[in-house]
């Protein structure tokens, strides 16, 4: 069973969100999701200053097996992207909740986080798959 940290929020489409102390949110994909996709070979990220809305396809994780869209779990403005993924997309496989983070967002509305799943809810959602 894959790891699902309890301090994060989750979307059913397998993104995780971490609220940082400065009020921004860091976004990645879950360990479960990387396991489904297999070895990652390319990651396409949004641009800094992009304005994104919940549900937008904002990034792509491409593995040997398939290309998978990544959807914005929250709305806001992109303030940072993980440039290390350009040369090391395998970070999504090896450290999905840490070094494999994708981008950071300045939230439009922090209350959107309440619409996301907690760890228990996400675990239930993938058990149903």
């Amino acid at each position, binding site marked *: 069973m894959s790891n699902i940290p309890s301090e994060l929020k989750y979307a059913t489409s397998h993104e995780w969100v971490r609220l940082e102390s400065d009020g921004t949110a860091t976004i990645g994909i879950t360990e479960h999701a990387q396991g489904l996709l*297999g070895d990652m*070979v*390319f990651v*396409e990220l949004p641009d800094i200053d992009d304005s994104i809305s919940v549900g937008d396809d904002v990034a*792509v994780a491409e593995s*040997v097996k398939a*290309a998978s869209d990544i959807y914005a779990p929250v709305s806001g403005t992109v303030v940072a992207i993980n440039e290390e993924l350009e040369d090391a997309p*395998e970070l999504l496989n090896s450290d999905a909740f840490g070094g494999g983070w994708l981008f950071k967002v300045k939230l439009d509305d922090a209350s959107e986080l309440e619409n996301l799943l907690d760890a228990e809810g996400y675990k239930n959602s993938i058990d149903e798959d």
Partner: protein
Amino acid sequence: MTNKTVLHAKHLASGAKMVDFYGWEMPINYGSQIEEHNAVRTDAGMFDVSHMTIVDVQGTDAKDFLRRLVINDVAKLTVPGKALYTGMLNEAGGVIDDLIIYFFSDTNYRLVVNSATREKDLAWMTKQAAGFDITITERPEFGMIAVQGPEAIAKVGTLLSAEESAAVEGMKPFFGVQVGDLFIATTGYTGENGYEIIIPESAAEDLWQKLLDAGVAPCGLGARDTLRLEAGMNLYGLDMDETVSPIAANMAWTISWEPTDRDFIGRDVLTAQKSAGDQPKLVGLVLEEKGVLRTAQKVITEAGEGIITSGTFSPTLGHSVALARVPRSVKVGDVVEVEMRKKLVKVTVTKPSFVRNGKKVF
């Protein structure tokens, strides 16, 4: 009904992720398919290919039967153990399957065909056997392990008996030899040196474990696919099938046109196609920018449209490569476009082969 190979428990013990492969529960990877791929390119890896179908064709008419059945000419085989890659066609000139034929004598041949096509292959062979004095015997009692990579032969060598070592000493590519319980062949599906070893099921687990202990990495179907695609080897069902001529599948080199009086199945159709010169052809495509070419993506050329038959990320090259069927007038070096995820990307046409013996070849 899911079939399991004799090595199933060994795969689970190595942490394999198992998938259904045409009715067989097979390892897709043991963690990272890219690491497995790299093991085969730089060291040694092994694949359980026990699901593949081994068929022995024996009898007075075995040679005449195979000269009718397949597009290459088994009469070219005169040295015992020599192997031949070829295709078996239907009357319309479409590929029923690709296969390897090992020659032992004019009355004794061994065929290795795909597992996904097992039933139709056996049915077709049985139907075509009418009037020939032969027996067609499937050999499911064997396991089969492919050990591939630059260190494969040396690592297997540490496990062989003196008799076995002597039998394979200096064996050229595309040969096989029966020595005791083992059939050891210098064939493979990766573009590297190595062996394919056919072994009685009762001894297969022991050999697999010894290979593991000798430092041979277990590799799954994921790595097998990226390796064969880099090597430009066709996968039945993707790169060709019953609707595709061998001329359109980079298999023309496996057709033996001489002697002209050999009446192999599909000959008249292929002859007409050859003189018309209108069959498409299979080429390589190389994408050096981000993204991965995938099966079924559309190829746009000045001469018309084509289609990607197999595409993947090439771990050896660090970018995507593909096999594609395109109009015959498309040339190596041409830049064409592929419709990929809502956009058009430019790719370069190459010969349908990308990596051999660990090195880029285009």
